[in-house]
């Protein structure tokens, strides 16, 4: 058989799901970055006018730091899930995904506490409105990330880990990492620098 008669080699399709997720993650990050930009700009404007942004002591750093620690730990667990999916290690995959979801739920629970603690009214002023817009958007994104991880967990329950599922876990992990990065912005901009 001459070389020209050989069938064409199968095209290598490099991780389409991961590329798509990377682009979607970039877009989601842009939404959040724009929200934080508006927040910072408005706070600077208030400061320039000598106005108080939040009442003194209204926003505590403790719970926010706890959330940062929780999410920092989740970076490890979500990568653990990715590694387990690559190695087709189901037990570790389940544990890692479950623990990551638990961390996500813990952060939402902590935010509920923060909302109760601060007791801001959403129509209290620009600061309160933007506080809810920024943190609410973060919670919405975290819930999307948790939904993605839940779907991949359920899919992994239905059958063995394979190349597709490993890519799905990797895509979910990418979005998760972006959420952690977004929370880092919230932590620094909203809670630390106030």
């Amino acid at each position, binding site marked *: 058989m001459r070389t020209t008669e050989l069938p064409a080699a199968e*095209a*290598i399709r490099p991780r389409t799901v991961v590329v798509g997720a990377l682009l979607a993650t970039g877009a989601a990050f*842009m*939404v959040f970055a724009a929200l934080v930009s508006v927040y910072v700009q408005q706070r600077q*404007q208030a400061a320039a006018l000598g106005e108080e942004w939040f009442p003194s002591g209204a926003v505590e750093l403790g719970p926010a730091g706890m959330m940062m620690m929780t999410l920092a730990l989740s970076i490890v667990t979500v990568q653990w899930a990715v590694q387990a999916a690559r190695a087709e290690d189901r037990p570790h995959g389940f544990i890692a995904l479950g623990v990551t979801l638990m961390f996500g739920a813990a952060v939402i629970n902590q935010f509920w506490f923060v909302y109760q603690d601060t007791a801001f009214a959403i129509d209290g002023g620009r600061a309160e409105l*933007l506080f809810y*817009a920024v943190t609410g958007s973060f919670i919405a994104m975290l819930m999307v990330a948790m939904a993605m991880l839940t779907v991949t967990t359920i899919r992994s329950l239905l059958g063995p880990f394979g190349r597709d599922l490993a890519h799905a876990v990797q895509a979910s992990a990418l979005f998760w990492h972006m959420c952690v990065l977004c929370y880092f912005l919230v932590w620094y901009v909203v809670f630390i620098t106030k």
Partner: protein
Amino acid sequence: MTLTESPVAESEAAADADGAAAPASPAETLGAPRGLAQPFMTNDAAQVGRLFVVTSLLLGLGAAVIGALLSLGRTDAVAPDDLFGGLNSYFRMWTLYRVSFVLLVVMPLLLGLALAVVPAQVGAGNVAFPRAALASFWSWLIGAVIMIASVLAGGGWGALDGVTGNESDAMALTLLGTGMVIVALLLGAIVVATTVISLRQTGMSLLDVPPFSWSMLVTAVVWLFSLPVAIANIVVIYADLRGRQAVAFGRPESPDIWLQLDWLVEQPAVYAMAVPVLGIVFSAVGKAVDARSSRPEAILIVVGLFGLLAMGGWSQDYFTAPQDLRDGLVYVAFGLAAVVPVVATAGGVGELVMRGSKTRDRLLSTPMLGAGAALKLLGAAALVGALRVIEPLDLLETSATWSVFHGVVAAGLIAGVAALATWSQLLLGPIQQRLAVGAIVLLGAGGGLLVLADLISGFIADDPDLMALALDGNAALNGVVLIGSLLVAAGLAAALLGAVSALRQRATAVSEPA
């Protein structure tokens, strides 16, 4: 299609001058959904692309009619208040016209073209996520319906003359529709970009990608960086608007909502919908004269540069004093630099023509005419954009803003028609030449008049403000604007007629028994 031609043969025939072999269209193979189920269940991105193209042209005709009515309101014939039943209604239509042409007409038109053409150009059987492409179309359409219906119900992007009752609810719905449309377009952009990045033929590097596919990749990246900023704007406005007295960003009785979103239809963000125009121009001319550029990498750089200059999320001036941003070095540099890639494109096109076959038929072909007209209008828009940022000319907040807008929109529409003629077999089918040429001539003439009249009006405006852009101006120029708007509407009608007749021919050919 003749009896001897199969859909596969048709696709292969459509393999364009860029050299990519078009694969079989999955929707036209056995087992694919047919009839009424097809638009709801198809996995074929080309089919989704056709849905985008026809629907956006239809919406474009509606937007052009609104534009003609608005232009009528600028003349002395009818008072604007009487035309739509009040100042608020006029403002609603004025904003709807602008947002529609960007989000409901030009962007989806070019996205639809990309969904059909890009997989064939990069040698992929289909797009990366065909079901996401279909979801993109339907969520875009539902968002568009919500947006238009809510505007007609008294919503829109703010008001000028106070509000009486439940307009804020309708405005919230308008924001929801706008957000949905943007998310849908982003989803489509992700599908196209992933197809170019991940599903290229083996051996095809990113530098080998044909100009149109490259331009769509650049466009997708620009949209992914710019449009999310508008979503962030909408989140903040919506949070303020809903359920209680708005405190800052979503006051329904003011034009604040519009002022937070108007950057989408102004330079530099407005150029984001013109990036594919460059790709279409290069591809259409190359195919028409059967030539390839000697420096294909230069084409990629030119298109990429224009994309970079079309990043516009940073340019909104609502949150800062306008003069701080718009007199700033970056804004001025972006405005001036946008001319460079358009001029470079003209040079590249010249080189293609010099290298290619210069027979009369080829030089006067529909793609060639379309490419030429689109490039001229885009060049005019970029030139006006450059004049606009030169401070001594004092054009920033004048109707020159809308001169740029109209130039870009008309260029996008003409490029769309040129693409329909260039890749007719991949898209709708052979489009009638008379209708395509008619559409190009009418859109070109109409767009040219609008660009020119709005620019001159900008020079002679005394004390421009938001509504002065819409209502004030020289009487003769307002007449010219009316003629331009009518020509654009007629051009869109011709394009729509051509698209529908091509689709009908295609449907007849497909249903012919083998």
